[in-house]
């Protein structure tokens, strides 16, 4: 084991800014990207639903 305590772990031997600055931004990116894609998917599904509803209305009340 490399670390004696949690504080020791977070200090990263004095390189905390650099190590956590790298890992943190990577982790953030890997969380945000899937969220953005999910949003894109919901958006297009919503548009398609609206179109389908409009078409249905037009068929029922021409």
């Amino acid at each position, binding site marked *: 084991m490399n670390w004696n305590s949690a504080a020791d772990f977070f200090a990263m031997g004095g390189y905390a800014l650099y190590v956590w600055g*790298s890992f943190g931004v990577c982790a953030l990116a890997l969380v945000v990207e899937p969220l953005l*894609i999910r949003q894109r998917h919901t958006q297009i599904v919503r548009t398609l639903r609206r179109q389908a509803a409009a078409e249905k209305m037009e068929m029922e009340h021409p």
Partner: protein
Amino acid sequence: MSNRLINWFRFASPHTFYPLAGKMIPVFWTLAALFGAAGLWLSFFVAPTDATQGEGYRIIFVHVPTSWMSMFIYMVMAGWAAMGLSLNARLSSMMAQALAPTGALMAFLSLWTGAFWGKPMWGTWWVWDARLTSELILFFLYLGFMALQASIDDPRRADKAGAIVALVGVVNVPIIYFSVTWWNTLHQGASVAINKSPSMAMTMLWGMLLMALCLWMYSIAVALTRVRAIILERESHTEWVKHLREVTP
């Protein structure tokens, strides 16, 4: 034999690929989580402290995998784009389109983690050196590909124009890879090479490989998710999309 061929090509149509991709996504998410957990464990708790760089070297566990993925995704993207161009297969072009943002993200993360590694070890966030500059060009190639595709209204023409940019840009990938041997650079040589035994502890090597596998699986999961959205966007006029369960009101 002929049967198998037909079955294989069946998935080249967006209609059949859409549900298949939906089934594959959770598998790749699971693999990404498993590889990621194992990779992080090795990176922080098993790999020993570096003799010269102390704990600062641990940035290698995200820097090298993101750099590898940025180059690898570009090759795969160019491959799909070429297939879309030569076979006139629109799903291939959609795959290329789905990979570009993830590749750009990997290139950005490679530059970002590189800066955060360069600052404590070299004393500077950035230098205009061969390795760093060629990676920056890769990032711009991704952005150029996406911007060009977005600027052309007709999707099939956008696919063709994008494919040409992607294919021309392939020349940059070997330049990045060999930049550390072709030029004098501040950047260290290749971390792992096929023709020599690794110069680092086995646990460090495994940490890097597992993190790379995690990002690989992540990229597949994310690209498949994005391609599903692209399929819906581009096939919205078709009957099968109109009859999808999630679309019918």
